[in-house]
């Protein structure tokens, strides 16, 4: 298993390098110039040229690439072109907020989605099934910024249970949970919709297996059949979807963070894109890639926890 993990990490390095290279060139092909952002629209051509020179943007692109790669290998991600602060520090400042949001949304999504999927499968083609399917379809179709505004209207304006600004003002864990509740719920609803649909179909397949019929024949209760025998066997596709979806979740967190006024990677990347902050974008792409690669690896490892027959070679 150790060999498997090491080999996968080796692949991850190659993936990262490819992403780095791609990102480096693609964002430089985009028109737009960070110096205009920094100096403002009253800047003269001379001062723009001066700043480009100081930031090294006037050098040949191949040389810039080598310097960037050398820095990245040494762990130096450079400083943000716009704020002048180290990229790594900017990212680490807000990364905990995004991880917190995503982790809670993930757990919440599974906690809501799994029972709903099982419920729908057990009641196949009856009213609970139809209700679950329609609701989960809604969850899949509503964009995060729409569901976010609806949640704010209901829970922050009408009911006044939660604040509109979930900006991490709370100091106690309870206050922090209150800040987190709405944004996490917003992300979790989408997650839950995916989990529900996959669980339902996977469960239906498992319930039609011979061993389920055997369990029924020997007189096991419906509860024991579903939750003890069938559930674990239907989990592999669910874990796959959760793993794949985690990447999408982090993407959706961009919109959620903006709507709920939470700090996080999402706001950082939108700002960096609008300001053509090359170094910041590069750093963030690496972080995103790293997260996706690690999540994929973790997903593969979880298979073994669920199904002892899975072996890592």
């Amino acid at each position, binding site marked *: 298993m150790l060999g498997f993990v090491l080999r996968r990490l080796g692949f991850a390095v190659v993936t990262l390098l490819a992403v780095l290279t791609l990102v480096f060139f693609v964002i430089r092909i*985009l028109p737009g110039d960070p110096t205009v952002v920094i100096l403002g629209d009253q800047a003269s051509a001379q001062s723009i040229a001066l700043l480009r020179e100081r930031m090294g943007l006037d050098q040949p692109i191949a040389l810039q690439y080598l310097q960037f790669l050398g820095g990245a290998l040494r762990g130096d991600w450079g400083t943000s072109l716009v704020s002048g602060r180290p990229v790594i520090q900017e990212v680490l400042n807000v990364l905990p907020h995004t991880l*917190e949001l995503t982790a809670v949304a*993930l757990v919440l999504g599974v906690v809501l989605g799994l029972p709903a999927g099982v419920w729908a499968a057990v009641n196949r083609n009856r009213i609970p099934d139809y209700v679950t399917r329609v609701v989960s379809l809604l969850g899949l179709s509503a964009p995060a910024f729409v569901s976010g505004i609806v949640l704010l209207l209901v829970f922050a*304006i009408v009911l006044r249970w939660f604040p509109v600004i979930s900006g*991490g003002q709370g100091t106690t864990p309870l206050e922090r949970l209150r800040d987190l509740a709405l944004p996490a719920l917003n992300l979790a609803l989408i997650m839950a919709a995916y989990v529900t649909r996959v669980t339902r179909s996977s469960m239906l397949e498992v319930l039609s297996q011979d061993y389920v019929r055997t369990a029924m024949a020997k007189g096991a209760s419906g509860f024991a059949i579903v939750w003890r025998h069938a559930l674990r066997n239907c989990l592999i596709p669910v874990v796959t979807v959760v793993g794949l979806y985690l990447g999408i979740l982090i993407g959706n967190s961009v919109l959620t963070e903006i709507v709920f006024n939470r700090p996080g990677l999402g706001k950082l990347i939108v700002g960096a894109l*609008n300001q053509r902050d090359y170094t910041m974008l590069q750093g963030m792409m690496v972080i995103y890639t790293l997260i996706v690669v690690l999540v994929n690896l973790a997903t593969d490892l979880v298979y073994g926890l669920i199904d002892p027959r899975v072996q890592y070679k």
Partner: protein
Amino acid sequence: MNYKTLALGAATAAVLAGLGTPAALAQTLTIAVPGNDMATLDPHRASATLDKNVINWMFNGLVRTAPGQFSLETIEPDIAESWTTSADGLTWTFNLRQDVTCQRDYGPLTASDVVYSLKRAASPETSSYAGDYAAFERIEAIDDHTVEIGLAHPVPSMLGLLVPFNGGSIVCEAAGTELGEDFGRNPVGTGPFAFAEYQSQQFVRLVANDGYFRGTPEIKEILFRYLGSDSSRDLAFQSGEVDLVNGRFEQSWLDRTAQLPDTTVSVLGPYELHQLHLNMNQPPLDDIRVRQAIAHAVDRAGLVAFRGEMLTREATSVIPSGYLGYEAQDLPEYDPEKARALLAEAGYPDGIDLKTVQTTLPAMLTTMEVVQAQLAEVGIRLNFELVDHPTFHEQIRQDLSQVVYYGAARLPVADIFLTQFFDSNSIVQTPGAVTNFSHCDVADAEIEAARTEIDPERQKELWAEAQRKIVEALCAVPLYEMGQPYAWNNKVQFAYPLAGSLNLSPMIDETTRLVD
């Protein structure tokens, strides 16, 4: 350990590891602005409006515009209690107040601080506004409380360069040298509020400067929040979590927000002038009749009706109204028939096609769609090349757009606006390029002469003549002027009428109060 406990453990750890921030005080004024983050709070560096907004409450200048006002006609003493000028306008002597202290225990402010600060503002190494101070030949401390400035040549509105705006904000020497590059994240001024804390993407927190020379501020804390989403910023104001909000550039926002209980809605100056710059270097726009046709096809009243009567007003010149040296002009009236006739006369009976690089920023795009429809009425087909905002800024500077739609406000002196937009030295793609998109060169002599004219009356005549010539040549077609939409709940009480401020945020000083 199964996957559930793993995930739960991770979630709990993440919750507990998060950053905490102090709870708001009772006398906290919470302000929300559209935007994601702060770039720098160094007044000599900051170019983003949101950064200037905060700087507004932390710094003083040698002089200032009256609280709540932005017109340079209202200039009054700030750090300098009096000043004199030599007859040739080249030597300025300022007598400083003796009770001014730097925030955060950096000690009393003396003439050497002022000298340091002005030199800092004049140096391209430390300032984005060095060009404004190019004529400052000599900046000297005569004694502890007297500063003398020697100019190489007279500058238009010398005092305008010494208000707390851009390079005019006075930075304390000890803080500036000690903090160096860190000053932008750790600014120290002399104003009513002092920097206390910054949380990236969340807020800047200022606290009352108890040693402020005009008295201890009533408000104890300002929380300046970055709330990028329009909808949730409005909701936060509605829920009472925010006291003062920078609104949307939409009449509907003003109308809707005005209906909230105990709320004041206001449009503050300085107004931005929006105009169409016509590239006179390229056919068919090199023909004055074509430019006249465009000017007659534009319905300014219609545009104002579209953008909203409260937020906008019709443009009246090629520089914003109220600027020192502004003079209302006779702009071509709306007359589609005449426009069509002019096009035919110029040899384009079937109309013309024009290319314009257009930003996708919604407020700018919708305006241009109305302009596009108005021009189409007379056969002028405006073809958009839609790009995102940074690309727009790059491409219009590369001379890639025949028509450039641009909105701008500057230090309210005619010279700066005229120089940047209509002086041939500022033509795009030249070494001195700024924002002369039209290749306008018809008023160079007047702009140049006015810059060093000592007699204020003669100077105003020259500026008026420049405006007349630019309007006549139609380097640009003025459309409308737009103010800054703000709303606050009535707990916030200003002791002065609010017309606006150069830093585009309402002035909050020692007299501003929060009542329950």
